[in-house]
């Protein structure tokens, strides 16, 4: 009854409510944030705009964490495909695949190309979004991060192109699946195409300082950056622009005060003009992150489970130094004086060892079962809680050797030899016996300017393990050759050999051989050197490597 009485009213009310509800429903849905969600754990793109230094810090650490993922690949692909590292009967299939240039699609050390692009894409995000106009204390502070990301990106691109033959270049961050699919379809670029683009990309920023992020445990974050000049030098080397390369390497030495220190020499004790059998191993400090030899290191700790396997691979004897590598050291002449020399480069001690926790005695010379001790030297901290680990893509000695490679190809083999033997210092430069007149010009090119007092103590690379080689006039000299070009080739071989003695197992070997072979347009150069370590199937490997297609990993 009550309802009936109110019916008219109710109908009105009903109509009103109905209209209200219909409207409100769509009004609600129209309220676009009704279905928008937030997260305390994830950070969405529109919230992460890199407007402050802290933001870029987070990105830098993320990029470092991604570099960790390619560290093992960098070393294993660089060395197992070279002549100095080899596999053992304990090596798994995948390591053997790399060793035999027969890499399958699911090889974990080679199927991680996405990890390289992860570095690149995260760098792109910073480069694209960072606000470089922020000024603090009169400095445009954000340029440092900007430049650092460009450098890391360029180095990573170089690794993709060198390992896989080509890389897809893009410079805007991929944030959507559609973008990813479109960019994937683009034509990949070879190392020469890429080098041109990358040089243009990073060259304007080569004078920007690296960001300073302090240190974490024993790792100096400044070591995590790649100097733009080093990368520029490398890219110029790949392009054959040797003067540009030499200038960049030189300027980096000068600007960052990278010198060849005399205290990194290992030497044999001499008493009464005879070797006592004792020796010092100062060269090992090269791999101590507290020592200013390192330029760039990729660091990781296993406390959070980061895979960084080089030390355990060597401890488990899944990788080992090749006989070629051991012989390299053993057959070098250690020169003390005119009347006192012996065979054996002391850099063997530390590069390899027969024991997992200490160096072997010089008098008990083993012939087999070597470990790669460098990988253990490169673990700065190891306690019950964690092991910190590093690899070193760039260090000062490598910079000097690259410089030598560049100036040698500028027709200055004696200058290049001085890097190895005498040291790049004023004394060497003014000594015409070391650098003959024909390698000088007036004015002196920038890359030959070592007159600064900074360089006065520079020693030759070879003095790290071969004694007073700077005073040797018998063994380590350029023989008389018909043409300057022959001398250049001779010294280039010496540099290649020096790289093996000094930087074995550090990851640069295969690309170094590739670069020389390409430069000489002679695949057999690489094929001969690499196949030397293969005993069972030397001819097969050699035949394979005569075709440069097999220098690259098939995707």
């Amino acid at each position: 009854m009550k309802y009936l009485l109110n019916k008219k009213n109710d109908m009105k009310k009903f109509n009103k409510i109905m209209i209200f509800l219909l409207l409100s429903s769509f009004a609600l849905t129209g309220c676009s944030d009704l279905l928008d969600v937030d997260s305390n754990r994830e950070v969405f793109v529109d919230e992460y705009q890199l407007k402050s230094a802290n933001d870029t810090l987070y990105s830098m650490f993320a990029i470092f964490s991604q570099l960790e993922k390619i560290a093992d690949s960098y070393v294993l692909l660089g060395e197992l495909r070279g002549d100095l590292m080899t596999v053992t009967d304990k090596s798994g299939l995948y390591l053997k695949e790399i060793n035999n240039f027969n890499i399958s699609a699911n090889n974990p050390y080679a199927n991680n190309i996405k990890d390289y692009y992860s570095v690149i894409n995260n760098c792109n995000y910073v480069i694209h979004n960072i606000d470089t106009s922020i000024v603090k204390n009169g400095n445009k502070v954000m340029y440092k991060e900007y430049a650092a990301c460009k450098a890391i990106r360029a180095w990573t691109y170089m690794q993709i192109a060198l390992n896989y033959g080509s890389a897809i270049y893009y410079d805007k961050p991929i944030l959507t699946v559609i973008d990813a699919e479109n960019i994937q379809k683009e034509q990949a670029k070879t190392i020469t195409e890429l080098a041109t683009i990358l040089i243009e990309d990073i060259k304007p920023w080569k004078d920007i300082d690296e960001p300073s992020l302090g240190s974490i445990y024993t790792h100096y974050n400044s070591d995590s950056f790649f100097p733009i000049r080093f990368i520029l030098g490398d890219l110029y080397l790949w392009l054959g622009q040797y003067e540009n390369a030499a200038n960049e390497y030189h300027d980096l030495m000068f600007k960052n005060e990278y010198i060849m220190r005399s205290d990194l020499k290992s030497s044999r004790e001499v008493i009464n003009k005879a070797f006592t059998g004792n020796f010092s191993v100062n060269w090992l400090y090269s791999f101590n992150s507290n020592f200013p030899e390192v330029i760039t290191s990729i660091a990781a700790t296993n406390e959070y489970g980061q895979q960084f396997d080089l030390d355990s691979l060597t401890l488990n004897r899944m990788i080992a130094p090749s006989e070629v590598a051991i012989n390299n050291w053993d057959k070098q002449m250690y020169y003390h004086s005119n009347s006192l020399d012996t065979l054996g480069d002391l850099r063997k001690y530390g590069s390899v060892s027969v024991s997992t926790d200490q160096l072997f005695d010089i008098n008990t010379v083993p012939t087999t079962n070597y470990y790669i001790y460098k990988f253990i030297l490169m673990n700065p901290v190891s306690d019950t809680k964690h092991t910190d680990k590093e690899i070193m893509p760039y260090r000062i000695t490598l910079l000097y050797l690259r410089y030598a490679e560049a100036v040698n190809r500028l027709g200055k083999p004696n200058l290049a030899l001085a890097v190895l033997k005498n040291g790049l210092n004023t004394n060497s430069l003014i000594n015409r016996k070391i650098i003959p007149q024909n390698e000088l010009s007036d004015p002196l090119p920038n890359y030959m300017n070592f007159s600064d007092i900074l360089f006065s103590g520079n020693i030759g690379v070879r003095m790290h393990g071969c004694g007073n080689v700077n005073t040797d006039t018998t063994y380590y000299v350029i023989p008389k050759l018909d043409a300057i070009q022959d001398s250049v080739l001779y010294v280039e071989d010496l540099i290649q050999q020096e790289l093996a003695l000094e930087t074995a197992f550090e990851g640069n070997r295969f690309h170094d051989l590739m670069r020389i072979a390409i430069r000489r347009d002679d695949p057999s150069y690489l094929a001969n050197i690499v196949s030397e370590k293969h005993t069972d199937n030397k001819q097969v490997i050699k035949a394979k490597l005569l075709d440069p297609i097999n220098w690259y990993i098939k995707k």
Partner: protein
Amino acid sequence: MSMKIINYLNRLNMNSDAFCFKQIAAFSILILLLSASSVKSENNPADIKGGKLITGLVRDAHTKLPVSAAQITVSDKSISAVTDEKGKFSIKIISPTAVLYISAYDYNLSEVPVRGRDSVIIELYSNQFSTYFKTVEGVSGIADNSKLVASIKSVDDLSQLNVIAADEVLQSALGADVRAISRSGVAGMGAALFIRGINSLNANAQPLFVVDGVIWANLYDAESIHQGFFSNPLDNIDVNDIENISVIKDGTSIYGSKAANGVILIKTKRARSIVTKIGLSIFSGITTRPESVPMMNGENFRIYASDLLKSKGFTGNDISNYGFLETDPSNLKTYNTNHNVTDWSDQVYQNGLTNSYMINANGGDEKALYYFSLGLTDNKGIVKTTGLQRINARFNADFKLSDAFTMGLNIGFNHTERTLIDDGISSSSPTWISLVKSPFLSPFSFTTNGETTTDFATTDEFDTGNPIGIIDYSINNLKKFRFNIGILPVYKITPDLTLSSQFDYSLYKTVEGRYVPMHFTAVRYLPDYGYSMNEINSQVLRNTAIFDDTRLTYEKKFDADNHLKAILGWRYMNNYYESDYVEEHNSGSNNNTTITGAYNFLQVSGVNNSTRSLSNYLNVDYDFKNRYFVSGAMAIDGSSRFGKATEGGFSMFGQSWGVFPAVNVGWLVSSEQFMKDIDFVNFCKIRGGYGLTGNDGISDYESMAYFSSVRFMNKANGLLLSNLENSGVQWETTAKTNVGLDLSLLKERLSFTFDYFWSNTSDLLVMKNLPEVSGLGFYWDNGGMMKNEGFEVAANIKVLNFKKLKWELGLNVGHYQNIITALPVSNYTTRVFEGEVLTAVGQSAGVFYGYKTNGIFATEAQAADANLRMLNPDGSYTQFGAGDVIFEDLADKDGNKDGIINEIDKQVIGNPNPDFYGTVTSNLSFGRFALNTVFTYSYGNDVYNYQRSMLEAGSGFNNQTTSLLRRWTAEGQVTDQPKAVYGDPMGNARFSDRWIEDGTYVRLKTISLSYALPIKSNYIEGINIWISANNLLTLTNYLGSDPEFSARNSVYYQGVDAGLLPQTRSYYLGVKFNL
């Protein structure tokens, strides 16, 4: 008509705002048309206006004696009559096809169609039988079962249950309608539930839980830190509080993008009248220890272990280092340590005990009705020290604020504390260790004089822990808390139109702590970290949800022939789920059991997921002449999980919306006049329906580009781009078609329900590889199709109907076939423990993929003949020899058999989906006694016996089953068990059909006997005493301890026996008072 419009709507889905508005317009037209049609029928009242008087007799189906005081009504309950003492009545009906509703004390409800007759004889059955004629909770509220057009089954007799969680009821009560697979023997662990096959691969495949109108988060992917334990949301409800449970298998489109896996509606009790009633329910029961699979005894194990040492290449001196081979009793300590007879299962198991007390009161006055309950459950598990204590309370009230305005209030509270222990195959699981630990060892250590001590022995020389040490020192607890408050204002705007809103806030939280002790568990090597002596874990899960469902309900009976019920509603959900997990190792002592941050290998992880969804829905039920039923539903859903530009939806207001229409029709054939003379058919209804539903079980934020935190070194935090925006990611769409028949024959002695269904799920969520330039691995995208086809049959026979003795039999059969019909990616496999599951076009979901075997090479000559080889990790090949398993070498695509056993020789070796499953029930009553029996069965499902694959691998120093006594040991020996070799270099124990078994079983799930005490007093309305037993008998050829288990909720883990605690026999005694 409505279907046409719906199709039209679908065609319009073109991601354009212009079209959206057309859709809204079309949507409004639909509403208008529907209401217009009803208005029209209002103007044209049905043919008979005056009505007709019919007479009838109501009598007992057995005695044929008249039933007096039976109430007869027609379907709108407006006209009624009552039988006289001769059982006779007369009633005036308006339509000749009216249906009479008869209710009488002690009898079941019955519905009798008049079919144009002038007089009817109605026979009633005792309410000790079950009946089809009842009201059922459907998607649009309570409705007569006889008028439902969707496929819905309900259970409302939950009076004598010995279970702790509601999903355990589903299996025995609705065994063919829900394939409920009990997870393990731990109390209240619940079941994995699958309705009508498998409707998703990677998203949630579990049904939607709707409790008192509120959608619950089912937490299907929430993982516990306790191994082998599941979080089960349904154990937050005391089964005694449940009024009824409905399983809705089709016609669920009103739930839009959430209902592809079916819907389970749970309704809790409310007061129905102002009379105060008090109920008290108590039960107590014991659960027996499980029977172990037959393991080798100590001496056999000693021989086995020394054989294994030899296979390891050990000789004289090496072997003598092992204490278990000590033969000299004068070496007191070593000899005594290794010469014991220990039944390790005694150390681990106990008989379980469950006590449950529950009191409820309901009543009220004209202004308010209330229902209040308080329950206490206490369980001692069958593994020592485990158990649970649960307290739950519920307060449901209904306030009548005015004639037009009522308010409902629901408050639920649950607090559960569990003591758990790791279960399944794990070095910290005492149940597992009790199987594999050598029987000649002792739980206690020995002094140098060879005297036993009371100190627990530490991890033995086989690297096996000490189960009682683990039980004593480990900490495994879980505290769970759920609270919800709901209000339900209902405003009757007009007698026909109601505005109501169901609002609910819930808070769910679990806090878990776990400590795995040192010394008594084996030291484990954690890859990339180091060695772990002990482990501490902690996890907090939190889920808060705000839910609102506001609806306008228009219900109108225009005349005797036209009845309309329409619901227009908006459902909004805001769910926040957080989990925080911490793990640490090597605390140094069994006294340091809490997380400090100072120990080794600290790992921290978690999620914070916000989900918001909105559904606009319309449901129209139309009933014409009580015989023709149409039900149409449509939901338009938006969710924060959907991409902004999905293919299957339309765009509006910057969001993507999915449209889910459905139509179901029913025809009550038995009410037709032409059925007048077909007496043996009492009831016949044909149903059919087609509808779309969705599955929004996409991970949160999947559609958005975001950065996640990563660690650099051990200190610095970085933000790494970890997901790309995928604006196309959307719900999975399931199109369901159903035809059904409900039949009651021979004076209701026989009733059948038959449903045939086929469904097609498209837009399956699958993992796709991202292009490598993105730097990321994979993303979730839609694509691929899967179909399910099957039937459900329920038959119910009233076998005996005597005065005292009544017997009713029920048979329920479910069947489905699931086939994946398309995948947007190539076929893929998923690793499941040591096994592999294939997802491939043309196969069912979850099929096992491994090697086929053909016995064991008895001789070297036979092996050399076969020349089967295997690739070693170092690149060389090894030939399978005598005593190795003969794996089947499949021909490659060129038809060549290469003789190398590798990946390409894998094939489908089993299907975990059953051919048939269901229940057989029997209800026998004799006077005040009732004996109810439920058998459950599953036929034709394959099982991957992961536990057995570990117990018969013959590759390590774990004790093995007695089948290892048959292991190949000598040239020429013909056997089915390969040789035991340390480390199994030839992979004889690899995932193969050796571990696939037929999981067919029949189980006497429950048998219960109850007695209603003949007490009638002013204070006591009734007392029931019952005894019951569970799992008394299981018939199966399955070799594991229990053929029913569910390793995880994921589709890929179905039919995988992970060695969880089996269900064992249990016996209960209960009493129930009604005051």
